[in-house]
């Protein structure tokens, strides 16, 4: 991973002449304790001006001192050391601390991935020159050779000349990435790689056919309605809408053929027209018009339901269970009828023929049996004809929603697969696995086309970018990444979360990404610049699912706290922390420049926002006074009755579907 980054130019390392051991210090098991303790005291007593920067150096020293103690077979001292000083770092590094505390044997240091990560990568820090000099002089004057050795061996302190950093190192969220072995500047440089976020160009002949079909429709409609249309049609014709939509979305998109897809079919044209019609029926959402939310509550699941998903047109609902099967229900209130196995394509000429080949009496639900382990992920194809599932049994399976049978079994991962996502145009799908990789597959190949390796821990979730050219993954290593499908390389790294990322969502306009997970906060990212736009807080439990509305103005989240929350995407306030104290000062709000083109896309939504901003402000102040720990862009919260929300998604018409399993309140909690 590290060769992807170029080392920074002005790295200063500790002069080697000071690296002489003091024999007495080396032999003394308490040396680490003594020297760490005095370093800590010195830092706490130093000037407030330098304190934050100096403090940032404590965590890596703490980790390596602990690992050194363990390696030297001094478990007692290591344990004492851990217990005494871990409180300093609980705030930012709890997961790492818990794992490091379990290491008690030199053997474990060699085996443990986290320990190895710290040992093999240099921990990057930024400091301005004065505190750095102070720090080095302090270590040298006091002859803390052990600490100096750690600093020399495992730390990469980049000295910034000039002004003091506002908040340095470990205290700034951006710099938590020190752990992963990359520093923020390198990431920023890395995130400069150019990407194309628009919709891909259409097949010219496909486009032509659609326009032709639309023209016919429009003229037919005109004939029907006679003259009233000629004097000022209030409803723009579908053809115009089509041209406008394509014009808008295709700027900065990959060229046609960049991502090869199978040739279009007659049904694709109809699907395209239907989606255009949906566009007319779509409700515009924003800070003033909140979505309608339909909740599907599952009963009698006894904790065995793992995942739920619905089709984009709200016709089918599928659930994956721990007992290795998948169940599909119809949401239209009709029975599901599968095609018979004896179907002979030669006898099918039209839709009626096909209908005749279906079961006479359908059933309320269909059970898909095939996996041999809990099913963790489900995804419908864009035309709703296929369902892809993934499981603990290391396989992904493709199912037909016409015959309700298994079509293909994809083997390739060596460990359980956590998540799967169908590409926006079908044909491709991606999986995320415990083996720390994400993989790209096409439906017609049983072997993966691409393996995306780079995450340092489980890849927990994967989502396609709406132009099918990129993938977004979220991982237990607390980073999210954007991958180029064609090249198979990572093009963006998003760091800042303090817990595993369990869900990601990409806005339909392709410009924004939201991620959330075990740290209970949602982060919004600008894909173009790779920067964090804001952090949204309010959930009190793990967040399981996120989705953007079809117009990318509203974000909905659901999680284990049994609430569905609605967020304003366009409010670009950069809230640093929402304080609980009543009447607290307004937190610094800093507008972050959004990609110019993204702004164009959202112009409509924004101008509306501006009108309501004064109203919002008073509302927001009121909330602050009440002392609710929700960030200012929180538009609404809808609690359920003991139902953790597993999945949230928007339909094409901006209706929000959420689903979860009812859990009876347990006695012990």
């Amino acid at each position: 991973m590290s060769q992807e980054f170029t080392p920074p130019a002005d790295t200063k390392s500790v002069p080697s002449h000071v690296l002489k051991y003091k024999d007495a210090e080396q032999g003394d098991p308490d040396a680490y304790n003594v020297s760490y303790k005095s370093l800590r005291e010195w830092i706490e007593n130093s000037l407030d001006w330098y304190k934050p920067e100096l403090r940032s150096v404590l965590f890596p020293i703490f980790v390596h001192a602990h690992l050194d103690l363990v390696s030297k077979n001094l478990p007692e001292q290591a344990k004492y050391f851990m217990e005494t000083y871990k409180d300093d770092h609980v705030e930012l590094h709890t997961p790492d601390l818990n794992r490091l505390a379990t290491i008690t044997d030199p053997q474990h240091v060699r085996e443990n991935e986290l320990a190895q990560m710290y040992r093999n990568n240099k921990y990057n820090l930024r400091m301005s020159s004065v505190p750095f000099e102070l720090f080095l002089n302090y270590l040298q004057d006091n002859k803390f050779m052990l600490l100096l050795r750690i600093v020399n061996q495992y730390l990469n302190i980049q000295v910034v000349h000039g002004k003091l950093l506002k908040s340095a190192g470990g205290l700034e969220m951006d710099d938590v990435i020190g752990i992963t072995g990359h520093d923020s500047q390198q990431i920023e440089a890395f995130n400069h790689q150019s990407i194309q976020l628009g919709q891909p160009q259409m097949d010219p002949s496909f486009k032509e056919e659609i326009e032709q079909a639309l023209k016919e429709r429009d003229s037919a409609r005109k004939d029907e309605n006679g003259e009233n249309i000629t004097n000022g049609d209030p409803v723009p014709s579908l053809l115009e809408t089509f041209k406008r939509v394509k014009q808008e979305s295709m700027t900065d998109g990959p060229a046609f053929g960049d991502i090869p897809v199978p040739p279009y079919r007659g049904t694709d044209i109809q699907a395209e027209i239907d989606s255009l019609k949906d566009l007319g029926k779509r409700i515009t959402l924003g800070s003033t018009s909140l979505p309608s939310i339909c909740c599907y509550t599952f009963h009698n699941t006894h904790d065995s339901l793992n995942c739920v998903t619905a089709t984009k047109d709200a016709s089918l609902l599928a659930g994956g269970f721990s007992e290795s099967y998948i169940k599909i229900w119809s949401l239209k209130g009709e029975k599901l009828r599968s095609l018979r196995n004896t179907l002979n394509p030669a006898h099918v000429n039209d839709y009626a023929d096909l209908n005749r080949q279906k079961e006479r009496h359908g059933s309320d639900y269909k059970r898909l049996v095939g996996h041999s382990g809990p099913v963790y992920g489900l995804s419908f194809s864009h035309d709703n004809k296929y369902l892809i599932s993934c499981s603990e049994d290391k396989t992904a399976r493709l199912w037909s929603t016409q015959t309700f049978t298994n079509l293909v079994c994809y083997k390739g991962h060596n460990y359980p697969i956590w998540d799967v996502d169908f590409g926006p145009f079908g044909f491709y799908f991606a999986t995320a696995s415990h083996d720390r990789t994400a993989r790209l597959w096409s439906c017609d190949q049983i072997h993966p086309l691409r393996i995306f390796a780079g995450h340092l821990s489980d890849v927990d979730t994967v989502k396609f970018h709406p132009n099918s050219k990129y993938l977004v993954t979220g991982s237990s290593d607390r980073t999210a990444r954007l991958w180029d499908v064609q090249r198979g390389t990572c093009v963006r790294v998003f760091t800042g979360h303090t817990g595993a990322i369990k869900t990601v969502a990409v806005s339909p306009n392709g410009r924004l990404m939201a991620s959330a997970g075990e740290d209970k906060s949602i982060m919004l990212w600008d894909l173009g610049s790779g920067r964090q736009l804001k952090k949204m807080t309010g959930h009190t439990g793990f967040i399981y699912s996120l989705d953007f509305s079809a117009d990318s103005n509203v974000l909905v989240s659901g999680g284990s706290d049994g609430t569905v929350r609605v967020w304003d995407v366009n409010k670009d306030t950069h809230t640093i922390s929402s304080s609980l104290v009543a009447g607290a000062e307004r937190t610094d709000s800093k507008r972050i420049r959004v990609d110019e083109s993204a702004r164009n896309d959202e112009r409509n939504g924004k101008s509306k926002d501006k009108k309501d901003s004064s109203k919002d402000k008073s509302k927001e102040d009121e909330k602050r006074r009440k002392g609710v720990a929700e960030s200012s862009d929180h538009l609404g919260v809808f609690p359920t009755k003991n139902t953790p929300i597993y999945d949230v998604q928007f339909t094409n018409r901006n209706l929000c579907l959420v689903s979860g399993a009812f859990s009876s309140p347990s006695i012990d909690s």
Partner: protein
Amino acid sequence: MSVFPKETIKNIGESLGVTHLKDEVASALAQDVEYRVHELIQEATKFMRHSKRSKLTVDDVNAALRVKNVEASLLPHINTQFQPLYGYACGETPTFRKTTVNGQELYFAEDEEVDFETILAKPLPKIPLDATFTAHWLAIEGVQPAIPQNPTPSDAKADLLTKRAKPNAAINGITTDQVDVKPLVKHVLSKELQMYFERITEAVSSPDERLKSQAFESLRMDPGLHQLLPYFVQHIHKKVTQNHKQLDVLEAMLSMAQALLNNKHLFVEPYLHQLIPPILSCLVGRTICESPFEDHWSTRHRAAGLMTLICNQFGKAYHTLQPRITKTLLRALLDPARPLTTHYGAIVGLDQLGPEVTRVLVAPNIKFYAETCLKSALVSSSPIRKLEAQKCKEALVNVLIHIAKQASLVPKESDMQVDTAPLSEEDKAELVDAVGEDVGKAFLESDPTRQGVQSVVEAATHMNE
């Protein structure tokens, strides 16, 4: 050393046929076992999280074992040959029982003997209900409909209340002079207290004067209101923000605050930060009544008195309290953009804090204030504005009178001789020059002593130089 004692390791060894395990070996093993168990739990947790559960099950651990490539199942005594037994899952948590053998405590898994005959003869268990789903509207255009599927607003409110109780509890933890923060204790209000709270809040805002005064009396005297105090403070806060234009409500809330402050048994300090803002709003609010002709002036006086009471009562313990309040008020006074009503409140507030404060802070600014704000308003055509300006003027004159009075109460030795001298025209001119024409003349009408005038002039010119 490790959470597993050596003996456990030895026992397990014996059960597998390894006897006479050395102590060092056993302790080394114990340490390793602890690490492996931690590792296993970490893996198992991943499976639990992906199944969206909050309870770790045997299945999760089995899955973790499989991922770690460990060929053993959870309960080795079932299967001593180290064959994987992945199909095994327990329906309920295994129970362990304690027994004492040769003076040693032993735990063992309960493993009942089962008679095949009876099992076979038993009727089949009931088929569990099939997993299904129901649909309902969680929200319609952002509004949660009140249907049985959704939690009732009171449930949601209870949720909110528990959230709100937290900051209060945290404050308690800190003010008790203990560095370690106490764990949050959910406190339950007794039914009686809840009823009392409802009664009082109702009575306070009722039109019945007798009921009202009884309520205040009760608040002033009752020794057992500790638990309700945060709620009362919260109530005052809420009422004031909601009804900031209804004079009678504000009056009632001020009386309530006064009663609480006067209750000797209550410990109000932790809630001061919540109590002061509503009182300040009553004091310097832009409009605190529906029509500008209502007598909001006395309400402001009342609030000023209360503010002074708080400063006197708690100023000793919190040195920054009075300076902060004075600073707030002074800022309100010296901002020409604020309305005159606010200025009035600020003047009255500062006046009540004592002549010491006004001498240093108000007197030097009177001339500036009178010229920038009052002059134009006094000749204003709007009767309201004129009245307001008049009131401000009166308040300022009062301030000066208080300063003069204090000066005459504490006569300096050197002033003893001049005390009796009559007021000369020179003095008058000096005064008008120091505090401005409008206020100066009005002050002279109150027939001050020469010494008083001199002290006022001294105070007013002090800062200007």
